[in-house]
């Protein structure tokens, strides 16, 4: 337990992942759902960087840089969609966004 190995980082990443999944599945506020998705992406990044250290090469770190780029693009587009929708119907609760329901 005194030696911090790869497994410790994986456990922290798994905990962050599960917290992100709980946030996505249970919250009503769209912005908080998007922030929980960012938590999930961060957990994956931590996993990648921990394994990159374990194997001694840098592929994991390069992949995590691409994931950060991807998360930026997705956050921008997602928030753009939210703003466009907010202009139509003044709500940010996911269960009130039901214009396509029968």
């Amino acid at each position, binding site marked *: 337990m005194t030696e911090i190995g790869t497994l410790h980082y994986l456990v922290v990443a798994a905990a962050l992942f599960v917290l992100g999944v709980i946030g996505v599945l249970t919250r009503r*506020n769209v912005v908080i759902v998007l922030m929980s998705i*960012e938590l999930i992406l961060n957990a994956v990044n931590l996993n990648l960087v921990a394994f990159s250290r374990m194997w001694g090469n840098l592929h994991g770190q390069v992949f995590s840089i691409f994931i950060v780029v991807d998360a930026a693009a997705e956050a921008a587009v997602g928030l753009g969609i939210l703003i466009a929708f907010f202009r139509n119907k003044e709500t940010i609760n996911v269960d009130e966004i039901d214009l396509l329901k029968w």
Partner: protein
Amino acid sequence: MTPVATPFFFYMLSGFAILGGLLVITRKNAVHSALALIVTLLAVAGLYLMLYAPFVAGVQIIVYAGGIMVLFLFVIMLVSLERTVKERQFNRIWPIGLLASCALLALFLGVLAKGKTLFEGRPIPPLTESNNTQQIGLMLYGNYMFAFEIASLLLLVAILGAVIMAKKRI
């Protein structure tokens, strides 16, 4: 430079990260959630530094905590009405969501229990001072050149998409 007090820093940083994650998913006020997520991102950047990944830690702080979270805060200011703080915070089907997350957690714990032996004989080699940024640069412009160009194209498309969607009249 030999690392010192590694378990203390690891437990402190991961404690901050998990505490920040808990605060993100439970706060009523979206601004509080955003600030808790910034704490989580900075703690994870600290964990990257412990894993000898200074460039990824720098990218995390500058792009994620400094760019994406500022974007989130702007949008929260734009769309947050005062009544959202007083409304119901959790879904009507939140027990099912919690159950599914507990199933996922049980799956992770099962995988951890089964795969624990795979990590035993592998001590992590200590790293002396190395040129991490230079090597990542060589990989980005060498092996991953194509992915790099596609990532810049993705950012261009995301900028265009976000601008067009947020315009009042196209």
